[in-house]
């Protein structure tokens, strides 16, 4: 543009002013409110969350109460006390599903939350510090990237042995590198933006730059990415329990219930499918809500 300005009309067109932060969130809320798909799945998620939270008050039975005489009752209203039937040990399915959601959701969400905090911090440090700090952190994540995520989760919790905390530890370790990568790349790109450069040039301290310029711009993308991991995490967590690596019987948990009901697929296939339906619906809802958030927040990639 340097030499061509001489012949270019200098018509005063007002430049678009960068929208203030408040307007951005209002825009996000407006876009979300216009997105019926996301709202629908969000609503389903809310209902499930409420059902799970109030499980002890909503469930008609004791989740651990077994009975040899009423095993594998069918779904339906032949017996109004067991609308969703009973499992292979005669426990009420509705009760077990409601209680099972507590553990499944906890197992699915907690690793992502912890990984969000740890991975986000490490990624921010790597992206902002650059240099050898970046090298050290990113090359370490490369190693974990050399494992397919299911395999890594199975490997760690397989070596550590069964148990809820081992399963959660292995899932957290799976997600940390993934979040580090996203956090590092967004931080690096924000750091190289002109306005951050100019803030640096005008003498702002590192902490101020991170707090004022970097954090508000990178938290959104990292958060959206983390929400997209919840769906994967739910499936993986239930999968570990399905393999016998997560929850131990008789604890109600959807993946474990799916496993113990496998013997029933020849006699009561519908009942055997129920825990899987719960995992599927939850994971689908988290996925769709995450997609909606991504669109509404205009996060690329």
């Amino acid at each position, binding site marked *: 543009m340097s030499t061509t300005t001489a012949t270019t009309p*200098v018509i005063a067109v007002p430049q678009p002013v960068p929208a203030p932060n408040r307007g951005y969130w209002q825009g996000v809320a407006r876009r979300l409110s216009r997105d019926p798909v996301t709202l629908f799945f969000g609503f389903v998620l809310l209902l499930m969350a409420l059902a799970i939270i109030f499980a002890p008050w909503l469930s008609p039975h004791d989740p651990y109460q077994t009975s040899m005489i009423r095993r594998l009752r069918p779904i339906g209203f032949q017996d109004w006390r067991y609308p969703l039937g009973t499992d292979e040990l005669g426990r009420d399915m509705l009760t077990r599903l409601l209680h099972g959601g507590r553990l499944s959701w906890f197992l699915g969400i907690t690793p992502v939350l912890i990984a969000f905090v740890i991975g986000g911090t490490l990624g921010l440090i790597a992206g902002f510090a650059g240099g050898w700090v970046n090298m050290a952190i990113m090359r370490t994540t490369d190693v974990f990237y050399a494992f397919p995520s299911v395999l890594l989760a199975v490997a760690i919790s397989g070596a550590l042995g069964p148990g809820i905390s081992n399963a959660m530890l292995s899932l957290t370790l799976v997600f940390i590198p993934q979040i580090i990568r996203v956090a590092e790349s967004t931080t690096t790109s924000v750091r190289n933006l002109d306005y951050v450069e100019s803030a640096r040039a005008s003498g702002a301290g590192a902490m101020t730059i991170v707090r004022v310029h970097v954090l508000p711009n990178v938290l959104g993308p990292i958060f959206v990415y983390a929400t997209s991991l919840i769906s994967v995490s739910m499936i993986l967590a239930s999968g570990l329990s399905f393999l016998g690596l997560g929850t131990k019987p008789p604890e109600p948990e959807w993946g474990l219930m799916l496993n113990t009901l496998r013997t029933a697929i020849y006699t009561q296939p519908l009942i055997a499918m129920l825990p899987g339906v719960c995992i599927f619906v939850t994971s689908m809802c988290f996925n769709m809500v995450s997609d909606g958030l991504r669109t509404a927040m205009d996060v690329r990639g």
Partner: protein
Amino acid sequence: MSESLVHVRDLNVRFVTRDATVNAVNGVSFDLAERESLCILGESGSGKSVTLRALMALNPPRRTKLSGTVRVGGHDIITASERRMADIRGSTVSMIFQEPMTALDPVFTIGRQIAETVMRHEGLSRAEADKRALELLELVQIPSAKRRLAAYPHELSGGLRQRAMIAIALSCRPKLLLADEPTTALDATVQIQILLLLRRLQQEMGMGVIFVTHDLGVAGEIADRVAVMYAGKFIEEGPVRDLMRGPLHPYAQGLLGATVHAGMRGERLTTIPGAPPNLERVPQGCAFAPRCPYVEEACLPKVPDFRSPVPGHAARCVRVPQAA
């Protein structure tokens, strides 16, 4: 009586999306004779590129709504099927784009991109098409053309890329060449070379050319006639010399006043206050009225008709006298 090369009457282009309808072009009419060159001048968003693309039905399909009459080389563009348009594009009429880096396919060689056009329209074999591609690269004066045939776009400089783009456009000897800001993305020295090349090729090949630019210098260099566009309408049209010396419309005057050119030493550069109108709603009267220093009552009720003080030069402004 022979028909003109391009015949446009009351062209309207609207972009319809779920959120909004944008009236990009609102009633444009003009003719272009063979071998004639017209330059459409305007700011970004004035509808000049959209008008140009409408001439070969190249605006995004589905959300573009065209109406009016557009005839190019005897073909009716508005009613033509996409299949029929594909036959017309590249052979009767072709186009050069603003940014050759993105307008060329990055993973195909230059030679291949020229050859496939020839193969498509003239049914030549691969070998014959490659030969033609070489001739074309020589025609547009690309040095060591043979080697450049096997080059990918990113391996050429901006000027060479634009020459390659021109070679593609000319590969089937079109009657009409459309150029969408062909020099904007180039360095000033390269701009002149490309303009000179285009002018020479136009004369040698006897093409009609329509240029779109926001750059008055380019307009003066190459055009026979100039049309100034604002808010989707032609607001002034005339021979290039007349229009550059004595623009009639206040917008055209502002455009010239805001430009540095020779013989202006000591004069102040002026700017046009305000911004172009939002094209989601077309104003009832003169679209420039809100920014016009000479606005009066008569500007507002309806769009002013063209008024022509001298033959061949006209503007849509109530202040322009109409010759008897």
